[in-house]
Every structure is written in C-alpha cells, then in structure tokens.
C-alpha cells in the first residue's frame, strides 16, 4: 500500500504539505512534511509534488512520475554508504500510521483528490 499522486489533477494548493507537517509537528508549519508541493518554477507554471518515502524520493511531475533513490553517491562509481546516519529532518512517509481517524492526511485533505491510496 502506498501513496499515488496524480500531478495533473494537482492545483498546487499546499494542503498536503501543511497537514503532513502538522502530523509531524503538532502545530502548523511546513518544515517537516514528507510531501511537498513543488513550486520553484513559478514563471513557467511548472508544478507537481515531491514525496519522500523511506529510501526513495517520488517526483510526481505533470509529465509523469519519477522515482529516485535517496542518498545516491556523488561519485557514480561508488555505492550508497551503509554507515550514513539519518538526518531526522524530514522522515519518510509512514502513511500517518498513528492517525487512525483520517488515514493518510494528505489524502483526506486534498480538495481535488489528486492524492490517493494505492
């Protein structure tokens, strides 16, 4: 079971980012969310979503979804470092496992149902 993102349905409203961060922080902030509304190309009207899971980063682009392994080496000949320590800044998606009432909050709060459960 996992998060499924339809980037074409997304309107970039950041609801997912806010409620995910709330799930982590118990207050309203954007710092800790594992799902982020990508909005850094504003003039180009290019937007989508980034979702951090345990070991991978899901990049939900309007043209398609890309999955990147986190922590891939800067040197392509080297493999990932097994002694790397977690940063604990943005943890991987846990499908809001402690929030029985809502299930994953990003899904509950998305106003256009761009995020669903696989």
């Amino acid at each position, binding site marked *: 079971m996992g998060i499924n993102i339809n980037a074409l349905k997304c309107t970039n409203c950041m*609801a997912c980012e806010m409620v995910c961060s*709330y799930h982590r922080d118990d*207050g309203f902030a954007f710092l800790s969310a594992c799902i982020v509304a990508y909005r850094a190309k504003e003039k180009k009207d290019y937007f989508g979503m980034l979702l951090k899971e345990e070991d991978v980063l899901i990049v939900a682009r309007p043209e398609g979804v890309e999955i990147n392994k986190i922590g891939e080496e800067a040197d392509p000949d080297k493999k990932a470092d097994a002694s790397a320590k977690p940063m604990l800044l943005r943890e991987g998606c846990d499908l809001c496992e402690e929030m029985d009432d809502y299930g994953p909050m990003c899904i509950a709060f998305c106003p256009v149902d761009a995020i669903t459960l696989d």
Partner: protein
Amino acid sequence: MEYLSTDKILVIDLNTAEVEEEELSEALVEEHIGGIGMTSYLYDKYKADDPIVIGTGLLAGTTYPASASAQITAKSPVTGKISHCPVIYKLGVEIKYSGFDYIVVKGSSPSPVYLWIHDGVADISDAADIWGKGVWESTDALRKFVGDDLLQTMMIGPAGENGSDYAQVCYNYWSSPDRFGFGKLFGAKNLKGFAFRGMGLIEVAEPEAYVERSLEILKQVKENGFLEKKGIAPILEALGHEGVAQWMGPVTHRHSADYFTPYATNTALFLDEDPGLLKESDNDEPGVIVSDILALVEFKNLGLSALDTGRVLKACAKYGIDPFAVARLCGKTSVEEITASFDAISGEIAIPGSGMFTPWCPTTPIFNDFDLSDSNEIMAWWERRQAVAMIFGIHPIFSLMCPELTEENMLELASLGTGLELTQETLDKVIDTIPG
C-alpha cells in the same frame, strides 16, 4: 498571544530606519479579532504617519479551507479612503510564517529600500539595484540574491516609481487585487516592496479539534458541485460572460490554486510556448498567470484575442500597473498601442459600495446564489462577506463561491485555534468599526 499567532507586530519607521516590535496581546485579538479588524486599529493608531499596514487573517495559514489571505490596509492615494487589498497566492501565508502577524510601515525613506522580512527579522535593505526595474526583474533579482525560489514578494514596478494613479503592488510576478493605487503609495515612500520568507511554526490551542473540524468543513465544501470546475473561465461564465472558455482555450495551460483554496482561481496562459506542454518549458517566461478575471474580460470585450490579452496582462504585471484600469481607460485595441499607453492613461475607476473593498472581486455570488436576489441585498452581502473574509484571512473570491464557509464556523475555528472566546457579537462590532 500564544496561539494562531507569531505574537508580534512589527513597526518600521522609514524616516529613521528604526525597527521595533510590539506584542500582539490577547486583549487586542479579543477586541479586533484579526486581519482588517486589526489593521484598521493599527492604521488609526499610526495614522499621523500615513502608514501602510500589512495584516494576516486570524485563520490564515491553517487547515481551515481557503485560509490563504493577508491584507494591505492604507489610505488610497487615488480615492483618499482607507482601503483594504487582499494578499493572495502563497504570499499571504508566507507573511505569517515570516514571523509577524502585522507590519506597520510609517513615513518615507530618503532613498529606495525594500523590506526583507524573514524568521522574525526585519531588514531595511538598499533597493538601488532594483529601483527602476520591472516587477519580474525585481522578484528574480531578490530570489537570486537570497538564494531561494520560494521567496515571496510584494513589489512595485515603474508605474509605482513614477507615481501613476494606477500603479499596483504586485505579488511575485503577478497582478494583484490592488485597484487603489497602493503602488503609488509605495513609490512615494521610496519603498520598492517587501520580500518574505519564513520557516515558522504556529501553535494551536486545540490542534486536534481544529484539524478535525477543518476536515469536516472541507468535506461539506467538496459536496458542493462547483469544485468539479477549475480556473477562471467557469467563473466568468457563471457571471454571464459567454464564450470565455472557447476564447481562452487555445492559450490555456494549467490552473492553480492559492494556499489551501479548494477552487483553482488562477489560470496560466502560455503565449510563447505550446499550451499543451506538460514538461518544464525551456522558455524562462512562457506566459502569464491570470487571477484578475474582470481585467481579462475587459480586454476580451475590446476585441483582443486571448493571446494578445495575455501579452497585455504580462506587460501590465511587469510594469506594475492595474490591468483593469488599462483596459477600461486606455482606449486602444492593439497590444503595442495598449502597452505604449501605460503612462498616459487617465480617468476614474469606480470602487463599489463603501469604497474600501476591491472590485477585483466580482460583486456578486459565484456558482451558488446564497439565497440572494435583490441587488441592494447582494451589495450589502458582498461588503460583509469581504469584511469577514479579510478578518479571518479567507480567499476573497472563494468566499463568494462557498456558502459552507460560514461566519459561525469561522468563529468556531477561531476560538478552537486561539483558546479565546470569540463571539458573533464581537465580529459584528469589528465589522461595524472598520472604517470606509
């Protein structure tokens, strides 16, 4: 003020370059609630200094649906009235998370400056490098300098620097709801604008209840059929403007929403790029994002194609001039003539009702009739609806679409969020005392 707040009011004196902070007390919130309730109070407190007051709605930046907006309160240099302009897109929310609920800017600077507000720090920064530049260039320059493409700006362009009555304060790259000539006010103060960025955290008195109720309200909103639509064409068609979708279709790219706003009130037009392109364009500036629906339809009514309308809207946003005023007053019908006329237009743009709320918002319900029919009733409703939206920080156009967002549930969430008892009586009183 512990909850739903940064607890801070920033007061900047541009004459002396002094920056001070005041506490936002619970007593003030109990009396003025938030948004324009508070900015009106602050305006009055500092009125001798002709202040610009930036405020954030009490619920702005939370999980309440459409809690997107902040406000600018100032005396319009054009109408002479104290007026309130919504701050939308993602800018409204960024202001609160940058560390201040309210910002008062007094006086004038001896040389051009911009205010860089970040994480509870207010820096008066030299604007020499961006004075004289357009809105887009200025925002680009600041984002590059600060090192963050998510920096949010409130900027004037040449129109404001040159003292045009139609100068707008623009938001990032886009035209704003400003029909009051606030851009002229900024220019007169040698204030190029603001840059905001913050990574704050807002505490909530009863977070679980707040979030639960927010979700319940959102579910009610989603049951209202209008959320199946997207963008500005359906809004214009609901307002009686026919054929907009077909007219805009060939240049329409995607639709986007302001913070936490369930309806996508913005439509991007691609002018120099295939509108069907989904991947990132190689063109740095392929088009324009439109939120000013009435300006759009004014240009359509002048006989411009959607492509040419987009070009003019882009030019207006770069120049920092009110596109509705340009459309209404320029008397031209080609892109080149219209853009050449920016400095020459003259005439008056009527501000409806009491004159304090922007007609950028259509003065009528959208998609849902709110059980209103009489035009006087509608205008009274509209003024109240705008006031309420700007006290609580609700997207002003969305508030015209959505009967599910009620004063009652806004007060309920305000009380859950702040831990204060905020009543209908208080809200009525605050609305009555907003000057206009």
